């Protein structure tokens, strides 16, 4: 990010390639695909616009997700979230994945989509983006205990919903 802030476009390409999927999925789990594309694009636009303000303290990913979090909150304010029903399970075509696994994945994605915003966000940041509890707390502005609690509730709900599959 420091190199990009100094005007190196190739550094942005590297950053984008490394983090784009996690950001896109973060929005996809929280909203529909059209809004996910908007949120994803707005997040990266802000990264570009704020490159001069980046101080290089800590890792880039928490910084990136702090921006994504703000974008998502803006989206929620503009358009309160409704139940998401268009989350798609994606098959990768590998032969070892049978129909039961696909169904379980589809079920799990639906359950994640149905979680309360705060729980889902903590879960996606943790499982998808690989952020630590402390980083999630800093990004979302809650205490570490609060993040742990959200994750615990989220996992408990998912486990209950997946009882027939696991």
């Amino acid at each position, binding site marked *: 990010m420091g190199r*990009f802030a100094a*005007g*190196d*476009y190739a550094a*942005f*390409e590297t950053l*984008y390639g490394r983090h*784009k*999927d996690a950001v*896109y*999925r973060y929005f*996809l789990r929280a909203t529909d695909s059209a809004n996910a*594309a908007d949120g*994803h*694009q707005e997040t*990266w*636009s802000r990264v*570009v*616009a704020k490159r001069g303000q980046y101080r290089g303290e800590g890792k880039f990913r928490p910084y990136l997700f702090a921006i994504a979090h703000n974008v998502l909150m803006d989206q929620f304010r503009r358009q309160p979230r409704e139940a998401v029903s268009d989350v*798609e*399970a*994606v098959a*990768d075509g590998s032969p070892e994945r049978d129909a039961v*696994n696909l169904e*379980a*994945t589809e079920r*799990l994605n639906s359950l994640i989509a149905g979680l309360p915003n705060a729980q889902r966000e903590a879960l996606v940041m943790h*499982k*998808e983006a690989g952020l630590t509890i402390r980083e999630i707390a800093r990004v979302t502005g809650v205490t570490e205990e609060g993040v742990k609690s959200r994750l*615990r509730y989220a*996992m408990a709900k*998912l*486990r209950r919903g*997946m009882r027939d*599959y*696991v």
Partner: protein
Amino acid sequence: MSDDWFDKTYRSEETPPPDLDARILKRARRATRRWAGSLVAAGIFTIAAVLVLAIMLANIELDVPPAERPAAGDVPPYPAAEGDCERSLSLVGPLGGPGRQDRTEICLAGDLLRADISWDGEPACPSHFSVAASPDTHVRLGGGSILIGSARYRCVDGVWTAE
């Protein structure tokens, strides 16, 4: 609390559509280029401003006639005595070099004595200076210098030097 079941079941393979990638990368490339362009423009502007300033300073320096430049060292003060002369005196003799007929006009006003020199040829030193004096201070030329009271003012290498 083991999350193994979650990690085994959760699959996340979605990726942004290629056209979205292209849009974001294009925008970043444009912004980087614009930013680099503005950096270059700022650099050129700074260099131009420094050059203009340097030229202005050089002109100011060049516009000052040599005889008017403040001299360094042990020099009598420049400010002229103000007001009408209570006492005046005209002296002619070599101050800027042997054989010259430099004219010195002495004017006493208050407690300042001003010496105005009309150089016979190239100015050798600043053409005027003032020193503290009183009505009974003796002034005369001698030995290529101006004697004011007990002090002798001599033009040395373009500088009035008190001896």
